[in-house]
């Protein structure tokens, strides 16, 4: 009779299956999830929040690649790279990223040479329409009033704290007292219209955003409104103030201009005189003339170097544009680097190149390859800052800052120079002369009654209290 003992191969097979199952279970637990935009709704040509959630994954390299080229120009890749420490448990990496209209957008998360996760967004999702964020349940009437945008429902804890994240948000409807006031203010400063439903006013910090008796208040470059006021005025107001036009004007006018080349006539005279003297020395000077010619070549080289050599191989320029009201505004900082020799320009800022160039971007740096005598403009991630230009209750503009404002000009009103801290307009009028080009360009883009000011380094656009933004020329 033949007996069957447990075969060693069968035991080994069981062991392999068990180990494979364990490994599969572990690998499923180790995940990385990316959320770009709000609820995976991305606004093209705007700053979007980026949230990478890692679970039990060690140090990872996150790379997001965007091709914003054209059929004519070919591929233009921008790569965003970030090193995320990760580790055991849950770790979250958050940032804001400017997402242009893309031809291709994909990302990959790598850890130790292995790809943890990857994905892509199809080109058809490159939608420029702003978002309407709804937190809580405001009711069907409010929800049905949100037309023209894309509605995304969010939980209050998912509202970002930094104003840059709300660059592509038109309306933020808050219908819960659990939303953080800091997030709400950040959205308003960025230019969104924040609608506080009655349910949200149960929270004291949110309720203080709307003073008693006021249904609407301008905050930063946006506004905070109650539902009633919002329903009344929403037909008069556009979705949000068009700061992009202001930034574009600033970027096109405030450029570094390379110095003009030295005139050619002195060069011609100098070079001709040098050649003539050298030839005379060689022909008639004999051996001393030969040595003198060599010495003359050396001294002429030094003499030519000193006046012709530019003092610096690169020039940096930083210009700020602050758009806001009521003491707070959204700052758009424009960096420009002009380089004489071809080199890679690395700007230590969280930003995005304005021109259509290939670039490497990180959470705190932008790297662009520049050709000879070329410049790159990088727009730093917008952020909320203090605003020195304040409009008092009587509609008069005042310098509420610590430094003098070299120029203040009100659209449809007066222009003043050297407005001291605390001083109100109009000041002692004197001949102001022609306005700078950038001031003229900004005044053409702001609504009636808005003020444009400069302290010499930054430009401020103060939005009036009772403005009708829809009337501002686009």
């Amino acid at each position: 009779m033949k007996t069957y003992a447990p075969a060693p191969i069968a035991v080994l097979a069981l062991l392999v299956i068990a180990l494979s199952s364990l490994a599969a279970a572990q690998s499923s637990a180790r995940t990385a999830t990316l959320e770009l935009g709000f609820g995976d709704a991305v606004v093209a040509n705007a700053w979007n929040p980026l949230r990478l959630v890692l679970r039990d994954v060690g140090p990872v390299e996150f790379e997001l690649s965007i091709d914003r080229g054209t059929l004519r120009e070919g591929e233009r890749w921008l790569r965003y790279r970030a090193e995320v420490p990760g580790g055991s448990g849950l770790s979250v990496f958050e940032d804001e990223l400017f997402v242009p209209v893309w031809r291709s957008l994909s990302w990959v998360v790598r850890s130790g040479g292995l790809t943890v996760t990857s994905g892509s967004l199809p080109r058809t999702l490159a939608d420029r329409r702003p978002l309407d964020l709804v937190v809580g349940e405001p009711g069907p009437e409010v929800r049905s009033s949100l037309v023209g945008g894309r509605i995304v429902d969010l939980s209050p804890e998912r509202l970002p704290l930094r104003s840059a994240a709300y660059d592509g948000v038109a309306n933020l409807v808050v219908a819960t007292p659990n939303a953080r006031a800091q997030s709400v203010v950040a959205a308003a400063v960025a230019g969104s219209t924040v609608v506080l439903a009655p349910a949200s006013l149960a929270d004291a910090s949110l309720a203080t955003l709307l003073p008693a008796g006021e249904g609407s208040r301008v905050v930063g470059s946006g506004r905070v409104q109650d539902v009633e006021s919002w329903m009344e005025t929403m037909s008069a107001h556009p979705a949000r103030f068009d700061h992009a036009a202001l930034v574009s004007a600033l970027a096109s006018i405030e450029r570094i201009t390379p110095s003009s080349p030295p005139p050619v006539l002195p060069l011609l005279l100098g070079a001709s005189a040098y050649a003539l003297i050298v030839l005379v020395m060689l022909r008639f000077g004999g051996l001393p003339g030969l040595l003198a010619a060599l010495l003359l070549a050396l001294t002429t080289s030094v003499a030519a170097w000193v006046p012709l050599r530019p003092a610096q191989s690169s020039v940096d320029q930083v210009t700020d544009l602050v758009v806001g009201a009521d003491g707070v505004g959204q700052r758009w900082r424009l960096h420009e680097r002009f380089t004489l020799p071809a080199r890679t320009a690395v700007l230590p800022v969280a930003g995005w190149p304005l021109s259509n160039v290939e670039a490497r971007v990180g959470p705190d740096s932008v790297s662009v390859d520049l050709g000879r005598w070329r410049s790159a403009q990088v727009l730093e991630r917008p952020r909320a800052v203090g605003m020195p230009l304040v409009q008092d209750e009587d509609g008069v503009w005042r310098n509420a800052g610590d430094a003098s404002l070299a120029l203040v000009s009100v659209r449809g009103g007066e222009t003043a120079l050297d407005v001291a801290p605390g001083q109100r307009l109009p000041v002692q009028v004197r001949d102001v002369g022609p306005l700078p080009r950038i001031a003229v360009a900004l005044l053409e883009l702001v609504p009636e009654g808005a003020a444009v000011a400069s302290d010499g380094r930054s430009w401020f656009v103060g939005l009036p209290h009772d403005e009708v933004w829809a009337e501002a020329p686009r």
Partner: protein
Amino acid sequence: MSRLLFGLEDRLRDSDATQVATLVLAALVITLIAVWPTPGSGSNESWYAFAQTRSVVLALLALGFGASAAGEAPRRAVATALMVVLVALLVLPLEVASYAASYPATPLWWSLVSVPVATAGYFVLGLVLGRVAQSLRLRALLPLLVPAAVAGLLVLDIQLGWTVLNPLTSAVAVSPWHLAMMSALAVVGLGLASVGWRRADRRGVNP
């Protein structure tokens, strides 16, 4: 050493030396003025055009004089080589002027080093060319062979995808292989000159 210098002094008194120095300096002054940017232009690219013109002109000069020196007495051939290198050194202020204003990424030392070394190297190549033409009884064709040699070196480098022999691309970018090749040729030339000089001394050819 003093014999070398006096030999150079004698060589410079020859009319062809003055003519060539005048021609080279005039050509490069005109080049510098022609490639200098106008006031409205946004960038100064004058060095690139100037350096390439200078390099080709000096290569033609060195190859031509090297080829003609193949049949000369050693002392005169050495004096001719020194004269060509001297002319190359005397155009450096024009190069420095265009370099300073253009601000290229290529370092200045490349021009300062490569100009005399490459001129010496091309002179030795010219000697070889002259000897070959002499042995083939084609010396009458040297005015054609010299520019043809420059064009051939350029074509060869382009075909092989490197920058070793041609004067055009080596003028504006650092090329260690070009420097090594030209240095090697210059050293060979020095060796040949030394040997030829001593032999001539023994025979009493060198006055």
